[in-house]
């Protein structure tokens, strides 16, 4: 099944759905990064499918709100604007009034395409404990990935040069699959490190 947006770009809806599902799944799991929760049901009993469909529905009911000439892709429009906002809204709902969460923030970048990491960074940083010894934590991460060339290069690309995914792939001449596997191993190390250092989000 495919769909054509106003920019006459043919979208493979199956592929789009998978990407949105992966984003939402990881996005919601990152919320519980330090809680170790493995539930597939999130806020108000919603599951990943529900958030993805809510995002697609918002687009299909108001396709004119997506402006492909701005350079923003449909994937980015739905994942970085709609789904992120939907989850943010749920986090601010009555059910979650007593907890301040990692991704509870206002969307202020509706009109421009956004770099996910740089946009999220200021919001997320405020929820991390100031008192932790992050130099020690990072030294631990560095030590844990020693010998894993791909993970080391990705880590260096992100922390040393602030590179994005495609820049790291190009700069270090790695295949996409290598990158995908490398960042996954790096994520596992980060999770283990967070647990080891009892790293928690600050709360209200």
């Amino acid at each position, binding site marked *: 099944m495919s769909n054509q947006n106003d920019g006459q770009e043919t979208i493979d809806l199956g592929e789009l759905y998978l990407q949105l599902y992966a984003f939402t799944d990881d996005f919601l799991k990152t919320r519980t990064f330090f809680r170790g929760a493995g539930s597939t049901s999130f806020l108000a009993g919603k599951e990943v499918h529900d958030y993805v469909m809510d995002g697609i529905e918002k687009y299909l009911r108001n396709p004119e709100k997506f402006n492909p000439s701005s350079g923003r892709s449909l994937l980015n429009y739905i994942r970085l604007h709609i789904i992120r906002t939907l989850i943010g809204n749920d986090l601010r709902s009555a059910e979650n009034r007593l907890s301040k969460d990692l991704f509870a923030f206002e969307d202020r970048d509706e009109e421009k395409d956004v770099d*996910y990491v740089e946009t999220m960074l200021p919001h997320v940083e405020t929820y991390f404990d100031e008192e932790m010894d992050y130099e020690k934590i990072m030294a631990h991460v560095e030590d844990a990935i020693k010998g894993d060339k791909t993970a080391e290069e990705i880590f260096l690309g992100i922390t040393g040069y602030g590179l994005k995914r495609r820049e790291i792939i190009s700069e270090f001449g790695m295949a996409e699959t290598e990158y995908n596997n490398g960042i996954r191993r790096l994520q596992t190390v980060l999770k283990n490190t967070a647990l080891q250092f009892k790293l928690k989000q600050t709360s209200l």
Partner: protein
Amino acid sequence: MSENSKKAKTDFIRTILTHADSVSSNSEAAGQYLSSEGLNTEAIKNEGLKRIKKLKLQVEADKTRREMEASEQHKQKAIEWVNNLLKDINFSFSDFVKKENLVLQNRNLESLTEDDIRNTLIQYYTLKFLDEDAGKNK
């Protein structure tokens, strides 16, 4: 907090966020991520397509319903408009036809009954109001 510690904190969070961005950057990465999480990508895709198909039908049905409602509203507005127009003793249908460049199926205006004129005017104003509304919503 020292500058070094601040940078280390930013780097730590940036690395976490890069992962979330990466897993959905393309369909291959998405598939690999979902498989690594023990999820069935084909089942997810099929479920998604099934839901999208159902949603598209709902969206189309809602659109048709809204259009029909809007059309009925415009027709009511046109009826009121025409009633007032026909009450005006200065109104001349032949002048109106010339002014608005109306193309009528029956070119012999003399043979039109009062009901024919009324229905023609209602049809004309219904379409006019619909066009105006569509123009506003663009």
